[in-house]
């Protein structure tokens, strides 16, 4: 029974023509974003759910996140070459999650450097085989170990990337959304690509450190940006206004979980009651909220 099903899923995974370009929007001159839909990654959307895009300089293009599968990576690459003749020099991975890195292999070519947080390679190594299994089982995507490409350039604290007439400042954050979050700031246009450090509409997903994330939010909130690009959700032009729902959600988790731990409540009971006042404020709340409470609880009980 497995063979026909696999064929069916694989057939669905292949785009109609290999050269179909991913739809992108120019949010400010030279910065193009493909906005993902708020869906749980599955065999229907093949993990194509995150915001992806690229930044064009005079000499180089930097791709920011490569897609949920190699085909989506190829479609993003096509969008780059439909937009500009400038070559891709860098593929920046903002963190280890499969919807952001599974398209890496589509960009592998001489002259293309992969860039990530200094803890990204470790996270890829530890999670890679699990992610490959899940891609086959749950995303209907066939991938192999060669599709997982660790960074050539590792960012320890902060690093500048010169694209020609445009300098990107990459920042490696302490554990927050994951333990390998990297943000990309374009001085030229005052645009901050926060990726999954910022969620709008789509419920935030916690896979790093709740306290760390709130600490990063406090720092980012004090800065001013003209545009901020989230990993999931629309581009933001009213910073730090659009950060407030995420800040509120994460703060609420922290407050309620601390109170539950103090009362001696157990994890499995806490996930049934904590944070449900936020249910109607977010897309995919039912898919991720309990996982968020679980991860946060396990962190906060060691305070």
């Amino acid at each position, binding site marked *: *029974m*497995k063979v*026909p*099903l696999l064929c*069916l*899923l694989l057939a*669905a995974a292949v785009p109609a023509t290999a050269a179909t370009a991913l739809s992108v929007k120019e949010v400010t001159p030279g910065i193009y974003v493909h906005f993902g839909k708020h*869906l*749980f*990654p*599955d*065999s*229907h959307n093949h993990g194509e759910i995150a915001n992806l895009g690229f930044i064009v300089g005079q000499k180089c293009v930097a791709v920011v996140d490569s897609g949920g599968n190699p085909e989506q990576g190829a479609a993003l690459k096509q969008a780059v070459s439909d937009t500009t003749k400038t070559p891709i020099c860098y593929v920046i991975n903002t963190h280890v*999650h*499969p*919807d952001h890195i599974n398209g890496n292999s589509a960009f592998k070519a001489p002259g293309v450097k992969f860039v990530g947080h200094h803890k990204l*390679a*470790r996270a*890829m*190594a*530890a*999670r*890679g*085989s*699990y*992610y490959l*299994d*899940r891609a086959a*089982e*749950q*995303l209907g995507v066939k991938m192999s*170990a060669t599709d*997982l490409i*660790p960074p050539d350039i590792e960012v320890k604290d902060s690093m500048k990337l010169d694209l020609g007439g445009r300098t990107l400042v990459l920042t490696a954050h302490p*554990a927050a959304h*994951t*333990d390998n979050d990297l943000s990309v700031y374009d001085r030229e246009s005052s645009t901050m690509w926060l990726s999954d450090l910022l969620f709008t509409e789509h419920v935030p*997903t*916690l*896979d*790093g*450190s709740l306290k*760390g994330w709130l600490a990063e939010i406090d720092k980012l909130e004090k800065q001013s940006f003209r545009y901020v690009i989230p990993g999931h959700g629309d581009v933001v032009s009213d910073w730090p206004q659009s950060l407030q729902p995420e800040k509120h959600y994460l703060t609420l988790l922290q407050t309620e979980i601390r109170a539950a731990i103090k009362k*001696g409540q*157990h*994890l*499995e009971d806490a*996930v049934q009651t904590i944070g449900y006042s936020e249910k109607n404020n977010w897309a995919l709340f039912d*898919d*991720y909220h*309990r*996982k968020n409470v*679980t*991860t946060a609880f*396990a*962190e906060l*009980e*060691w305070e």
Partner: protein
Amino acid sequence: MKKILPAILLTALLPVGNTAAAEDEKIWNNVLKPEYFAQQAIQESDDVIELDAPIRAEDPALVPFKITSKIKQSKDNYIKRILVLVDNNPFPFVGDFGFTPDSGKADVAMRIRVNSNSNIRAIAEMNDGKLVMTKKFVKASGGCSAPIGANLDEAMARLGKMKFRLEDQVKTGEPNQVQLMISHPNITGMQMDQITRFIKRSHFVKDVKVTFNGKPVFTAKTDIAISADPNFRFYFVPDKAGELKAEVADTSCELPTKRDVCTKGDVYTETFKVQP
């Protein structure tokens, strides 16, 4: 997740679901039963112990899992040990938990890693050798999480730290619940060779022994399926004031799914004064 699949895909998926369920019994019948209970009769029933686990494992790294016993631990009739297995995990053995009449109740709660859709099964062995099994099917979640800890460095920094948590009012002569928290990354050692530049070996809590005034109340042999920062809840019956003591030993093995080449690790201890 399946709810948004088109009908045609949903129909196509059904036979696979059934095949997967049948395969679950195959691993038990062909591999696990012969390995752990060769030639032994096992009764399948919920009369001795019951399992509680979420239907869907939202976080594969941390699935809360609880065994509730339905019999009182007495000198003549008690649950001696409970073996826990996750059939489809790369290393199915979760733990072997030991109890005594002094445990009061052979209940145990823990957090485990569940890699893919799988039966979780618990086999209780009575003091007279009788074996009773119960099981529950857990669906693994998709999404972005993976069955390892979220913040490895944080867990490493706290390595070996332990905490006991008890109810405010401890009562003599009846079972009281104890929570033992152990800070340990419980590294699986499962990783991709071509990207490996980091943690090459597994490193996990292997033995847990808890005594009250020197008498054992709870023991556990555990493995990589226990979540980072192992967390156990169990019972003990204090007869008077005294001291709970936990001794925890870890190990490190060359290969993630083989236990023949391992190095003895460290021993961590923690005590707690009980004042009923």
